[in-house]
């Protein structure tokens, strides 16, 4: 079995207009910048993929990554927990102009909804957001005297994630706190595309050290010297 793909361009070539795309990372840590930029390149060249729904904790920073997707006009809707940040002008501008929709989800609920999708759990109850405006319209139930909100799984057509090591079967590890949403998104998407800093041979990752088992991954592309979103933002880079 060989899930290796030669280039980021090839890896994202099958994402259609209107797709729902999960993008891993928390801020810049674990963000698959090169896969995102390959999508932008394709959009500039072909007009696709357009009208995307993007799921990420944030909504982009500065002029690169998801922010650059927003500026390019590729995103119709963001599902995230924290679209506001010091350099989130791209989202802010588009949102306040009514050009982009927002589904705001508490961070832990976002993680759990994604995990639920991966685990075949269509709905679950959480204390989070009970009694707040983010629970409006959602079913509520009481268990053992406490009230909880029912939340639904959150699936995607594609997940783009950033790993540290990957093998041809699709086993992945992550670097430091770059893990964050990445392993969950691998589980929740119909097609998961991983960029990894290093492709090792099959068997090159200890079975006890695998964080994302190969069953959750469909394509692996090596990006040996990945860019770091935070550094690009600080350097004022516009993609």
């Amino acid at each position: 079995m060989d899930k290796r793909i030669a280039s980021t361009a090839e890896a994202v070539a099958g994402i259609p207009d209107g797709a729902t795309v999960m993008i891993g990372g928390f801020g810049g840590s674990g963000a698959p910048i090169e896969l995102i930029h390959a999508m932008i390149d394709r959009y500039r060249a072909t007009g696709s993929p357009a009208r995307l729904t993007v799921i990420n904790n944030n909504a982009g920073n500065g002029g690169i990554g998801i922010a650059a997707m927003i500026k390019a006009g590729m995103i119709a809707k963001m599902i995230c927990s924290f679209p506001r940040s010091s350099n989130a002008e791209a989202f802010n501008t588009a949102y306040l102009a009514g050009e982009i929709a927002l589904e705001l989800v508490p961070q832990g609920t976002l993680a759990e909804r994604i995990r639920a999708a991966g685990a075949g759990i269509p709905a679950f109850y959480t204390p989070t957001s009970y009694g707040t405006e983010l629970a409006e319209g959602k079913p509520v139930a009481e268990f053992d005297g406490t009230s909880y909100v029912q939340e639904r799984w959150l699936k995607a057509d594609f997940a783009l994630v950033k790993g540290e090591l990957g093998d041809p079967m699709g086993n992945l590890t992550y670097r430091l706190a770059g893990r964050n949403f990445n392993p969950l998104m691998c589980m929740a998407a119909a097609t998961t595309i991983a960029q990894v800093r290093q492709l090792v041979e099959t068997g090159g990752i200890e079975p006890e050290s695998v964080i994302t088992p190969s069953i959750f991954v469909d394509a692996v592309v090596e990006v040996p010297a990945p860019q770091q979103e935070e550094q690009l933002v600080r350097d004022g880079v516009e993609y």
Partner: protein
Amino acid sequence: MDKLTNAQIAWRAAQDIDDGAYVNLGIGFPEMVAQYAPEGRTPVYHTENGVLGFGPAPAEGEEDWDLINAGKKPITLKPGAAFFHHADSFAMVRGGHLDVAILGAYQVAQNGDLANWRVGTKGVPAVGGAMDLVHGAGRVAVITDHVTKDGQPKLVEACTFPLTGVGCVTRVYTSLAVVDIEDGRFVLREKLAGLALEDLQAVTGARLHLDGPVADLIVPEAP
């Protein structure tokens, strides 16, 4: 009536498993399917207790009892294997990540209902992962003798034994035939060459429908 051996049934089921497919084989008879993966195809086997990518049993005396499958039999690892905990393991099952699950059966109904965990109400009940495995996999196939030891049909209109899952089975490989389950009906795809349709129907507990030609069910003599 001529019929296939268990090895031949397992061989036939193995022919439908693609290279690189993620597969769970139920404890017991279904485990035999792994022996017959066609040349050039390398399925990846999943076991409920948290291993992906395991291989056959080790040589006697080389067992490591921390490295077992769901049947508590010792296994080995193939390159690219991974360990994970039970919740992640059943996320793979329930979450639709497996391509194929192959299970045994007491009864399969024409609507896809499966009974394979309990034949009555006596003794100690034990379910294991049976009720989980019937959900989520891309295909849930059954391998089974076509009839019970005392000649009763195992393919039935409605299960009389306690159910494992509702409407979950998509294909049945029996000692006499290959039958798909579509729109609440048994659709006959293959049968033994020497077996007349009416004789097959006679040992089947529900109507066998035809949808195009019925192929001969051809297997090696001793796979």
